[in-house]
């Protein structure tokens, strides 16, 4: 799995699920801050007609931070919403994923988060599918 994929999974993770899985890993690596958790906004863009000129749709809240483990790697956390603890976990996980502990983080955190997100998505897709409809056009009398 590449870094872009795991960072994206961490960014979209449900906070409660993320903390529970992280706590279960019982890791407390020593680190120093390069950028303390900071709450900010990202301007989300759309496109006219879905494919045309870009326009500014509105902002969303994001929390970010950067830290460095004592033994070297730099971890970056960018997560949706306003949650310093969530960003910190994401950055720690990102840093550890660049170390020998990578497999444990993948198995204990990233894969379960991905599975949960996928299950949620499948659940919604199934609900949507249950509302799929076929419309029939009927011949109207007055048209003869």
């Amino acid at each position, binding site marked *: 799995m590449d870094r872009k994929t795991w960072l994206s999974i961490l960014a979209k993770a449900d906070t409660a699920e993320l903390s529970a899985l992280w706590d279960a890993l019982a890791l407390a690596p020593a680190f120093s801050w390069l950028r303390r958790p900071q709450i900010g906004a990202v301007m989300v863009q*759309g496109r006219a007609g879905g494919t045309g000129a870009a326009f500014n749709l509105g902002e969303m809240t994001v929390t970010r931070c950067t830290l460095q483990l004592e033994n070297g790697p730099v971890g970056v956390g960018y997560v949706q919403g306003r949650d310093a603890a969530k960003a910190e976990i994401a950055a720690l996980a990102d840093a550890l994923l660049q170390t020998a502990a990578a497999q444990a983080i993948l198995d204990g955190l990233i894969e379960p988060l991905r599975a949960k997100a996928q299950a949620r998505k499948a659940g919604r897709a199934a609900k949507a599918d249950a*509302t799929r409809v076929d419309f029939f056009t009927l011949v109207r009398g007055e048209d003869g």
Partner: protein
Amino acid sequence: MYVAVKGGEAAIDAAHDWLAEERRGPTDIAELTLGQIKGQMSLAIARVMAEGSLYDPDLAALAIKQARGDLIEAIFLIRAYRTTLPRFGASHPVETGDMACDRRISATFKDLPGGQVLGPTFDYTHRLLDFKLAADGALAARDVAEDVAEAAPDTAPEPMPRVTEFLNAEGLIEPEVDPGEAPGDLTRAPLELPASRALRLQSLTRADEGFLLGMAYSTQRGYARNHAFVGELRIGTVPVEMDIPELGFAIEIGEITLTECETVNQFRGSETAPPQFTRGYGLVFGQTERKAISMALVDRALRWKELDEDDLGAPAQDEEFVLYHADNIQATGFLEHIKLPHYVDFQSETELLRRLRQAFAAAPIQAEAAE
């Protein structure tokens, strides 16, 4: 003219205390939690996020609670808060074509790839009050989960291509191409007219829903020749991707719910363009269907110049009128300020009126004399 007034601190404090008490309501009834507002007033959350122009359901819930359910007040709180946030950057444009759709319907094509999906809609309800909801603890709707368990599709959902692409393939609709320009941002630079379509769309997506609905309705009733079909309406989630400078690549930084509406409109053609369908576009935060359709209609009406159409003098065609009056926070700020102390202004008006009346009392004689 603004004149400062002093005093009233104790009265203002007392008013705020009472406001807090009224917001809380009777204490023998449990206080609303943000989770309840977020989970059960989700369409109010969507409106506050869309018009507050900040996607954060938790903040929207807090704003609604603090504003006692006054959504414009809640939007005001969100707008004020968002100005305090540092801007980390702009996302890539969201790919609504890849949306994970809760709802996707077309009023122009009956059969379309991906199908028509109704989603959690008020359409086809009878608009009869459901008194079972008034009875505490009753579960009104049957559990959808059971049906879903039976369906249990393990396969990936069918792709849902854009409806306008079918027309585009035949050349029946104007193409929508990306000129690759960075869009202007009306939260950073004052809106100047004429505005680009990008700025108009930004203005419309955060506009007051009621204002936009009225404007859109006027186009349907004939105030701008603008016969629209809903080519496609989709509601669902899309990931938001952004370049992270320190990483040197883009990551998904979150996922948001959007409502998108594409209208297909008639166009006779001009000297330079053949007869073809044209487009109106709406894209709004959250499940905000009425707003997205309204936005698409007003977007189309405002495009008369670039499509070489006639100015019919309709309000919805008037860029200045629409864009300068669509923002409910600007509007309410200016509207409501007139209830605040204007004692000095009024005193001077009163004195002026007295002088005019004195002059008037003296004038008829002169007027008669002149005749």
